[in-house]
C-alpha cells in the first residue's frame, strides 16, 4: 500500500480504541517476570554456555601479546576467542568502530576476547587471568583542541544551511546575541545492557538479542561475519531500553556468535556494566556558537548556528544545528556543522541526535535574546514561529504545526505570568526560584513498514512484524491499530514483535516507529479485510468492521465465518511527503529552586505541551515524553562522560559515577498533548513523540536557573562548581 496523498476522513477519525489511553498489553508479562529479556531466554537453545567479554586496557595502539594459557586452563573454560588468534571481523555501514578488530586498538574497552565457560563465574574468573601486552599509540582525545581545524561535515539533507546574507544582516541588526555553548559526551545508560544468546545450526545463526532495528541488524551482522543474511535470524521481542544505543549490532552479538562457533554450543553473554560506556556508542560532545540578530520588534533577521563535534571516523558527528532552520524563520541564515577526528569510542545516535544538544544552545540563546530585547521569552518565540512555509532550499510547506498553541497553552497551564522578567527576584528562604521556557522541534520521519495480520478460526487477530518495543509501548499501539481496523476488542489481538522471520518494519529509531509501524499494520489489515470479503463474497474495502463482524448493507458476517486467513501488507510513504516539513512541536516549562548557599539546583516542576498529531495511546505517549524530560534533566544538570585526555577514555564508566537522575530529582512532571491531526504523515495522522520530549526541556531548566540566579551558564552540565563563586555572597 502506498501513502500517496494526504489522508482524508477514515476509520481512525471514528476510532474507539486508537487514541484512547490503554495500559500496555505486555504490562502483566513484564511485571510478573514473564517477558524474558535477551539474557533470560534460557529455553530458546539447550546447553547454553556463558561468555565474558574482555575489553582493551588502552585507547589507541595495538596488542603485542596475549597470554591465554592460564585462562584456558582455568576451571570450566570451554574456549577463548582472542584478538591475537582471530582475524578482524568485517564492518557494516552502521558501525564506525571495529567490533572485534584483531590486534589494532581503536578505542578503550574495544572487545579483544571472549571467554566461554560452563558458568558465568568461571568465565569471569578466567577472563581475569588473561595477560595482554600493548604498544601504546598516539591518539586525539580533546575536542576543544582539534575543533578549530575540523572540516565541514557533508550533509545528506536538503540544504537549509544558507539563506540570504547572514553577515550583513547580523552586522546591521539592532539587537544581537553571540554566544558559545558546550555539551559533554553523554551515555545512553540504558538499564538493560547489551545481551545476546547465539546459536549455530550448521551454517545458520540465530541471535536472541536486545536490538531496536532487527532488519538493519540482520544485514549488518551478515556483513560483519561475512555470511549471507538469509542464514541469520535475529529475535528481539523485549528491549530494556535503547535510546539509540541498540540501533546497531554491537560487540555482544558478534562475540556471542564467534564464541558459539568456537565452542560449538549456544553461548549467552551480557556486556558487563563497566564496559557499557566505552565499548558502546555515545552522544558526542558539542561546541556550539549561536548568533541571533533581531529587530526591536523581536523579529529575527539573522540566525547562525555553528557546531563542532568529533567522531572516530571524522564523520557523522552530533549535528546540533538541525532544529534551528525549522524552529525559527529569519530572512538570513548560516548553519555550519563540523566534525573532527577523535580517537574516543564511537559517537552515534542517541535519542534526538543533534537536536537534543542543539536545543540546549539555541533555546538558551533565545532566552538571552528575549532578555536583550526586554521581551517575554514566550512572545519572542511566537513572533518568530515559522508559519505556512519553511524558508530554505527548497522552500517547504509545513504539514501541521501548532507551536504557538503549545506555547500559549503551556504558559497558561504553568502559570508563566508569575515569572519575574528580571532574574534573581524570587526568593523563598534559602531558595532562589526561577521559571524557564523553551520551544522544541523534532522531525517526524517515516520509514516503510510491513506486517502480517492473521485471522484465527476463532475470530482472533494475530499481528507479526519485526517491529520492536523498546519500552515505548509498540505492542499496545499495534494491537490498538489492528483492533480498530479489524473491528475486534483489544483482548482479541495478539502481537508478536522483534523476530526477523516476520515482515520487515520500520523498527524503533528516530521517532519514526509509532507512525510507520502502525501504518504498516493498517496496510496489512486492509489486505486482510479484502481477503475476508473475497472469502465471504463482499467488498472488504467498503464493509464496516466492528464488534467482530464485517457488515455491508444487509450483509453481516462474524469474522470467524471466514476461517483462518493471513495477509501481509506494507506501507510505503509517497514522494508527496517530501514537499512538506513534517515535524513535531513542543513548549517546555520548568521551575527550579537553587540553594543560595550551596548552589544545589532542584527541579520543582516540569511541563511539556506537545503537538504530534493523533496520539495513538496517550498513556504510553505520556510516559515517553516524561521519560525524555527526565533524560533532558540529566543532560542539563548531571550527566557528563569525563574524558581522561591522557589515557583517552570515558573515565566514569559505571552508574555510580555517570549520574543519571534519580526519583528525588524529578518531583512533578506534566505532559499535555494538543488534539491535532497531521494528514501528511500516515492514515493514522499520528506522529512520534519519543524524541520530541528531549528537545527543549534542558534549555527550559537552564533558563529557569538563570531566572532564579541571574547567572548564565553555557557549559553543560550545570553543576554547582561552575557557578558557586557567582552566587549571592554569604556571611
Amino acid at each position, binding site marked *: 500500500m502506498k501513502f500517496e496523498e494526504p489522508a482524508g476522513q477514515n476509520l481512525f477519525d471514528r476510532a474507539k480504541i486508537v487514541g484512547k489511553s490503554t495500559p500496555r498489553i505486555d504490562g502483566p508479562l513484564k511485571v510478573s517476570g514473564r517477558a524474558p529479556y535477551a539474557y533470560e531466554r534460557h529455553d530458546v537453545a539447550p546447553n547454553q554456555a556463558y561468555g565474558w567479554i574482555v575489553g582493551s586496557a588502552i585507547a589507541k595502539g595495538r596488542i603485542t601479546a596475549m597470554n591465554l594459557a592460564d585462562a584456558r586452563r582455568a576451571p570450566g573454560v570451554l574456549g577463548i576467542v582472542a584478538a591475537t588468534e582471530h582475524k578482524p571481523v568485517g564492518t557494516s555501514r552502521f558501525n564506525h568502530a571495529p567490533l572485534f578488530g584483531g590486534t589494532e586498538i581503536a578505542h578503550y574497552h574495544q572487545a579483544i576476547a571472549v571467554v566461554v565457560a560452563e558458568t558465568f563465574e568461571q568465565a569471569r574468573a578466567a577472563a*581475569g587471568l588473561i595477560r595482554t601486552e600493548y604498544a601504546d599509540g598516539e591518539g586525539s582525545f580533546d575536542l576543544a583542541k582539534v575543533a578549530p581545524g575540523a572540516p565541514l561535515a557533508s550533509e545528506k539533507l536538503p540544504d537549509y544551511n544558507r539563506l540570504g546574507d547572514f553577515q550583513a544582516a547580523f552586522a546591521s541588526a539592532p539587537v544581537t546575541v553571540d554566544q558559545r555553548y558546550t555539551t559533554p559526551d553523554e551515555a545512553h545508560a540504558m538499564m538493560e545492557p547489551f545481551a545476546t544468546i547465539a546459536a549455530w545450526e550448521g551454517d545458520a545463526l540465530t541471535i536472541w538479542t536486545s536490538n531496536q532495528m532487527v532488519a538493519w541488524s540482520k544485514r549488518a551482522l551478515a556483513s560483519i561475519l561475512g555470511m549471507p543474511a538469509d542464514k541469520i535470524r535475529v529475535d528481539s521481542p523485549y528491549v530494556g531500553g535503547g535510546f539509540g544505543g541498540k540501533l546497531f549490532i554491537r560487540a555482544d552479538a558478534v562475540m556471542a556468535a564467534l564464541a558459539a562457533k568456537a565452542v560449538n554450543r549456544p553461548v549467552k553473554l551480557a556486556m558487563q556494566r563497566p564496559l557499557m560506556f566505552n565499548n558502546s556508542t555515545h552522544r558526542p560532545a558539542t561546541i556550539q556558537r549561536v548568533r541571533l540578530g533581531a529587530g526591536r520588534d523581536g523579529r529575527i533577521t539573522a540566525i547562525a548556528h555553528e557546531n563542532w563535534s568529533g567522531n572516530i571516523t571524522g564523520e557523522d558527528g552530533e549535528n546540533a544545528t538541525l532544529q534551528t532552520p525549522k524552529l525559527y524563520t529569519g530572512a538570513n541564515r548560516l548553519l555550519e556543522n563540523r566534525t573532527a577526528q577523535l580517537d574516543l569510542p564511537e559517537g552515534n545516535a542517541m535519542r534526538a541526535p543533534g537536536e537534543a544538544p542543539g536545543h540546549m544552545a539555541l533555546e538558551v540563546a533565545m532566552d538571552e535574546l528575549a532578555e536583550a530585547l526586554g521581551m517575554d521569552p514566550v512572545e519572542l518565540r511566537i513572533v518568530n514561529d515559522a508559519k505556512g512555509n519553511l524558508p530554505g532550499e527548497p522552500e517547504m510547506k509545513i504539514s501541521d504545526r501548532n507551536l504557538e498553541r503549545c506555547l500559549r497553552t503551556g504558559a497558561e497551564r504553568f502559570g508563566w505570568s508569575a515569572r519575574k522578567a528580571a532574574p534573581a527576584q524570587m526568593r523563598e528562604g534559602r531558595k532562589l526560584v526561577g521559571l524557564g521556557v523553551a520551544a522544541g522541534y523534532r522531525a517526524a520521519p517515516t520509514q516503510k513498514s510491513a506486517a502480517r495480520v492473521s485471522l484465527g478460526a476463532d475470530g482472533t487477530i494475530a499481528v507479526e512484524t519485526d517491529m520492536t518495543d523498546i519500552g515505548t509501548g509498540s505492542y499496545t499501539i499495534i494491537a490498538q491499530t489492528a483492533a480498530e481496523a479489524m473491528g475486534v476488542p483489544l483482548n482479541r489481538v495478539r502481537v508478536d514483535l522483534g523476530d526477523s522471520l516476520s515482515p520487515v518494519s520500520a523498527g524503533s529509531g528516530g521517532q519514526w516507529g509509532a507512525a510507520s509501524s502502525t501504518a504498516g499494520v493498517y496496510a496489512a489489515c486492509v489486505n486482510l479485510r479484502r481477503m475476508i470479503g473475497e472469502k465471504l463474497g463482499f467488498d472488504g474495502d467498503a464493509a464496516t468492521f466492528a464488534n467482530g463482524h464485517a457488515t455491508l448493507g444487509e450483509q453481516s458476517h462474524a469474522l470467524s465465518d471466514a476461517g483462518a486467513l493471513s495477509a501481509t501488507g506494507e506501507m510505503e510513504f509517497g514522494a508527496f511527503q517530501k514537499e512538506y516539513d513534517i515535524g513535531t512541536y513542543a513548549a517546555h516549562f520548568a521551575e527550579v529552586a537553587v540553594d543560595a548557599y550551596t548552589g544545589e539546583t532542584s527541579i520543582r516542576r516540569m511541563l511539556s505541551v506537545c503537538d504530534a498529531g493523533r496520539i495513538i495511546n496517550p498513556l504510553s505517549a505520556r510516559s515517553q515524553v516524561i521519560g525524555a524530560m527526565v533524560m533532558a534533566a540529566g543532560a542539563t544538570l*548531571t550527566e557528563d562522560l569525563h574524558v581522561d585526555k591522557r589515557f583517552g577514555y570515558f573515565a*566514569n564508566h559505571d552508574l555510580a559515577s555517570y549520574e543519571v537522575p534519580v526519583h528525588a530529582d524529578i518531583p512533578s512532571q506534566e505532559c499535555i498533548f494538543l488534539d491535532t491531526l497531521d494528514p501528511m504523515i500516515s492514515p493514522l495522522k499520528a506522529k512520534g513523540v519519543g524524541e520530541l520530549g528531549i528537545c527543549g526541556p534542558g534549555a527550559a531548566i537552564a533558563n529557569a536557573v538563570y531566572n532564579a540566579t541571574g547567572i548564565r551558564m553555557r557549559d553543560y552540565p550545570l553543576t*554547582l562548581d561552575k557557578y558557586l563563586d557567582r552566587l549571592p555572597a554569604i556571611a
Partner: protein
Amino acid sequence: MRSFTYERAATPADAARAVASHPNAKFIAGGTNLLDLMKLEIETPAHLIDVGQLGLDRIEKAGDGIRIGTLVSNTALSAHERVREDYPVLTRAIQAGASGQLRNKATTGGNLLQRTRCIYFYDTNMPCNKRAPGSGCAAIGGISRQLGVIGTSDACIATYPGDMAVAMRVLDAAVETIRPDGTMRSIPIADFHRLWGDTPHIETVLEPGELITHVYLPKPLGGKQFYAKVRDRRSYAFALVSVAAVIQPDGTGWVAFGGVAPKPWRVPEADAMLPHGAKAVVDRAFADARPTEDNAFKIPLARRTLAGVLADAKA
C-alpha cells in the same frame, strides 16, 4: 572475581583468629562494598569469614551513651529511637547515604570500612597506589573533581566517601575491637582512619585480623544537629562536601566535614571558631588544603554549606 572459600564464625574471637590464620582472608558483613570490589578484582581475598552470625546486632545503653553492635544495619541504627532523639545527626547522616535497599544490608562496621570511590581505583587498567601499591596515582593530573582537598598525599588524593562516620566524628564515637590474640581495645574515631601518606592501601589503624565489635557513642551533646550533604543529584550519590554539626544555643559547637579528606575531617581548633561564623571555621579547618584545579571548589562549598547550616541553626 577470583574463587574463594567461605566460613561462618561462631564467636568474635573465632572470627578474629580465623582471619589472622589465613594468608589472604577478610571479614564479610553486609557485603555491599566487598562483593562489588571482588567482582572487579579490586579485592581478591582467598577466604571469607562471615561475621553475620556473631550476635553483635544490638544497640544497648552503656553508661551515659550507647553501644552499637557492628552488625546493626544502617537502617536499624538510623531508625533507633534513642539515636533519633539523642544523636539525630547520625540518623540524618545515615539516611543521606546510599539507598534504602543498601542501608538494609549495610552494617555499622562495614560502613566505617567502606573504601574510596575514586574512579581510577575502580578501573584495574589504571595506575592506582591504593589498589596496586607503587603503580602510581592516575587521579593526580586526571579527573579529581570528587576527590580530596586536604589530608591527601603525593601518593593518593582519594577521600573516605562515607556519611555515617562523619556524624560519628562529630559525636566523638569510639570503635571497639577484638584482636586475634583475644585482647580488646577502644579506638577514638579521630584516630581510626589514617591519612594516606606513602601507604594509601593501609586505610585504618586496624591490625590484621582485628574485628570491629561495637561503636560507642558517648553522652548526647544536645543542641541542634545537622547533616548537610551536597551532591550533584538529590540522592544515591556520594558527597561533594558534607557537614555534620552540633550547634548549641550559644553558637558554640562541633563540626566535621565529609567528602574532602581520607577521613571525616574535623579540626578541634576550627570547632572553637564556630561562634565567628563559617568562614572562620573553614579557614581554620582547611588551612592546609591542597586541592586540585578540579576540586578547589570544595573549599568554598564547605564554607557555604556550613554557612547554610549556621543560618538554619539560628532560624
